[in-house]
């Protein structure tokens, strides 16, 4: 089918046992109400989710792959910034 000009939306789903919304994919829809319905139909067919977020793709700003080094490399050297010297109790192991 030819491009009808419907905007693209990114879909984030939080699963039943999840703590945060995870990117599930993208779809075309006329507006946010239809995007939520379509996301429910396309991405939660097998009970994957309890909560859906949709965002217009154009509203998402992403870090550029070219800037990976300036953005992320220095932090790896600075051990004093990493909170790895604490003993985490079992209950918050996922932190």
């Amino acid at each position, binding site marked *: *089918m030819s491009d*009808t000009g*419907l905007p693209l939306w990114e879909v984030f789903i939080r699963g039943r046992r999840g703590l945060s919304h995870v990117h599930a994919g993208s*779809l*075309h*829809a*006329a*507006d946010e*109400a*239809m995007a939520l*319905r*379509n996301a429910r*139909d*396309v991405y939660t*067919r097998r009970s994957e989710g309890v909560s859906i977020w949709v965002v217009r793709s154009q509203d998402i700003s992403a870090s550029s792959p070219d800037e990976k080094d300036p953005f992320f490399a220095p932090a790896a050297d600075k051990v004093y910034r990493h909170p790895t010297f604490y003993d985490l109790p079992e209950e918050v192991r996922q932190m």
Partner: protein
Amino acid sequence: MLSQRLSEWASRAPEIEEDIALTNIALDLLGQARALLDYAAVVEGGTRDEDDLAYLRTEREFRNVHLVEQENGDFAHTIARQLFFSTYQLFLYEELISSTDELLAGVAAKAVKEAAYHHDHAALWTVRLGDGTDDSRRRMQAAVDRLWPFTAELFDADDVETGLAAQGIAVDPATLRPRWVRAISDTFTTATLVIPPTVWTSHGGRRGVHTECFGYLLAEMQYLHRLHPGASW
């Protein structure tokens, strides 16, 4: 029967998301049909099961309303038909939850959530198509005009139904009509569509008398089963 009709949209819908939405609705309806046909076979008490009822009954033994057998037409026609039928189903199942028959109440409790979603889907589309471009409004109004004569039959009841309703088992469809008209009117107002004047109405489905579309629909649905009786996948 509506599930069968909706399945014709698979791979033909305007957008892939809509393809999945319509076929999901078809699957929901099929689930409801299976539960009800299965129960019908039990109540009948004979040797027929749900498959026999679905695939071996002849045209005159099917009692669905004419609205569901109408051709899909363009997307506007399908949405108009969905709006009319899913609104009716929503109110029907809401009432049927209080049926004195346990199984019907159970089917209704599950189906009402599906019907709520189907109604939501159809209403959202009706508003967007009606209050959309001139072209979409023209098509949507044409669809409404064409399908309106088939809506009266939704509220027909024969003696069997009114008898069961008196016992608290079934719902008298006529009681759903005022709520249905109000819901449709509200949606149409937002969608800038008008309810057409009632010039003629179609009836007879519940007596087994169907429109000309039905024969083709039934043939396609049943021919494989009849071609290989007793086969399993």
